[in-house]
C-alpha cells in the first residue's frame, strides 16, 4: 500500500467531486422549485426564472440598498461581537476546568431555549433600533462559538499540552502555538454555526420589530402579500447564507483538516 499516494488522492478527489455534487444539488433544488411553481401556480410561488429576474430588478432599485446596508451593518457588528466574545469565553472556560464545569450547562441551557422569547426583554432594555437587533443577533451567535471552542480547547490531547509545558511556553504561546491550531477544526464548526445563527437572529429581530432592514422588508412584503419580493429576498438570503457557509466549509477543509 502506498500511503502517501493514497493521501494525495484523498485530498484532491472529494474536493473535485464536491463541486460537481454541489452543482448537481443546485440543479436538483431548482428543478424542485420549478416543479412546485408549476403545481402551486405562479401567482403564489413564482418560478426560479421569474424570481431571479425580479431579484435583478430589486438589486437595481435605489430603495433596496438602505435596507440591505442596515441589515449588513447590524449583522456585521453582531457577528464581530459573537466571534470575539464567543472565542474569549470558549478559551477561558476551556482552559479553566472549574469555570467550564460551572458555566457550560448554563450555556447549553440558553442554547436550547427558543431565544425569540427573550427578544421583548432586549427591546425593553435597548429600545427599538439597531442596538436591539445587534444584541439579538449576538446572543444567537455567541453561544455556539463559545460552546464549540470550549469543547475543542478542553479536548486538546493532554500530551500536546505537556509538550508545550516542557518547552516552557507562556500562556500566550500556549494558546497561539498549541491550543488554537489543535482546536481550529472544531472552532471552525462553531464559527460556521455562529455565522448562520447570527444572521438568523439579526433577521428575526428585524422581522419582529424594526422599521428598516431586509427582515422588515420581508415582513412588509408578507403583509402586502407581495410574493415577488418575498421570493426575491428569500432567494438572496439563501444564496448569501449558502455561499458564506460553503466558503467557510472550504476554508476549514483547505487549512485545518489535515486528512
Amino acid at each position, binding site marked *: 500500500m502506498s500511503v502517501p499516494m493514497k493521501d494525495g488522492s484523498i485530498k484532491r478527489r472529494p474536493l473535485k467531486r464536491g463541486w460537481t*455534487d454541489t452543482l448537481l444539488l443546485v440543479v436538483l433544488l431548482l428543478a424542485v422549485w420549478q416543479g412546485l411553481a408549476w403545481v*402551486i401556480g405562479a401567482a403564489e410561488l413564482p418560478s426560479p426564472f421569474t424570481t431571479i429576474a425580479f431579484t435583478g430588478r430589486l438589486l437595481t432599485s435605489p430603495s433596496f440598498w438602505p435596507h440591505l446596508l442596515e441589515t449588513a451593518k447590524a449583522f456585521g457588528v453582531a457577528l464581530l461581537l459573537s466571534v470575539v466574545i464567543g472565542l474569549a469565553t470558549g478559551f477561558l472556560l476551556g482552559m479553566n476546568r472549574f469555570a467550564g*464545569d460551572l458555566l457550560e*450547562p448554563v450555556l447549553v441551557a440558553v442554547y436550547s*431555549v427558543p431565544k425569540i422569547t427573550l427578544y421583548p426583554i432586549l427591546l425593553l432594555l435597548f429600545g427599538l433600533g439597531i442596538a436591539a437587533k445587534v444584541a439579538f443577533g449576538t446572543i444567537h451567535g455567541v453561544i455556539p462559538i463559545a460552546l464549540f471552542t470550549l469543547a475543542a480547547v478542553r479536548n486538546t490531547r493532554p500530551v500536546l499540552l505537556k509538550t508545550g509545558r516542557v518547552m516552557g511556553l507562556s500562556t500566550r504561546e500556549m494558546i497561539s502555538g498549541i491550543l488554537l491550531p489543535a482546536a481550529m477544526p472544531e472552532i471552525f464548526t462553531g464559527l460556521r454555526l455562529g455565522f448562520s445563527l447570527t444572521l438568523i437572529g439579526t*433577521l428575526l429581530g428585524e422581522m419582529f420589530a424594526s422599521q428598516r432592514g431586509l427582515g422588515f422588508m420581508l415582513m412588509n412584503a408578507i403583509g402586502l*402579500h407581495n*410574493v415577488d419580493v418575498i421570493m426575491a429576498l*428569500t432567494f438572496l438570503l439563501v444564496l448569501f*447564507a449558502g455561499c458564506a457557509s460553503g466558503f467557510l466549509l472550504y476554508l476549514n477543509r483547505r487549512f485545518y483538516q489535515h486528512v
Partner: protein
Amino acid sequence: MKRATLWRIGLLAAAVAGLEILCLAGAIDRLTMQPPHRMAVDLVRLLAGGALNAAILKTLGNAALAVVIAMVVGVAAAVALHRLPSFRRLLDPLFATYYAVPMFAFYPLLVVLFGLGDTPQIFIGAMLAVVAVIVNTLNGLDRIPKVLLKTARVNRLSPWETAVRITLPCAAPYILGAAKLAVAYALIGIIGAEFIMSTSGMGYEISYAYTNFDNATMYPLIILILAVSIAVNTLLARWERALMVRRGLA
C-alpha cells in the same frame, strides 16, 4: 452533588437576588422588568386563572407533534441515506448550509400551501428540527463498529432486524441527542412563527403582551417557555448521559 453544581445554583440564586434588589430599588424601572418575585406570583396567577391555558396547550401540543414528525421522518431518512452513500454525498452541502437559511422566510408560502391553521407552524417546526435529527442520527450510524454489522450478518439478521436490533440501539445516544435538538428547534420554529404571524399560541401572547406593555403576562409566559424547554432538555440529556455511562463513554 458536585462542587460546580452547587456553585452554579448559588450563582443563579445570586443573579435572581441581584435582579430583585435592582428592581425593588428602582434601578430597573417597572416598565422594563418586574422584580423576579412578581414574575413568580404572576406565573402562578396566570396558570391558576386559566385564561391562557388554550394558548399554552396549543403551542406545546404543536411542538410535541412537530418533534414526533421530525424524529420519525429524520431517523427513517438517516437510515435510508446511510444505505445510499452517493445520494447522501449529494445532499451533504444542503445539510451543511441548512441552518444558515432563515426558515421563517418560507412561512408565507407555507400558509399558501397549508392554509391559516396550525399546519404551517407545525410544518416549520418539523422542518427546522428534521435536519438536526438526520445529521445527528447519521453521525451515530457512522460510528457503528463494522464488526457489529458483520455479527448481524453472521447471525443472519434481515435488514429490518439489523436496524431494530443493532443499528438503532447502537446509535441510541446520538438519536437522543437528536431528540434534544429536535425539541429545541421545534419550539424555536413554532414560537417564532406564532411571534411573527399568528393570532394564537404562547408566542403570539408574548408579542401581544409586549405591544400592550403587559409585563404581568409577558414575563411569566417567557419564564414558562424557558422552564419547559430547559426541563425537557435536561431530562433528555440525563437519559443520554445514562446511556453513555453504561457504555463507558462518559
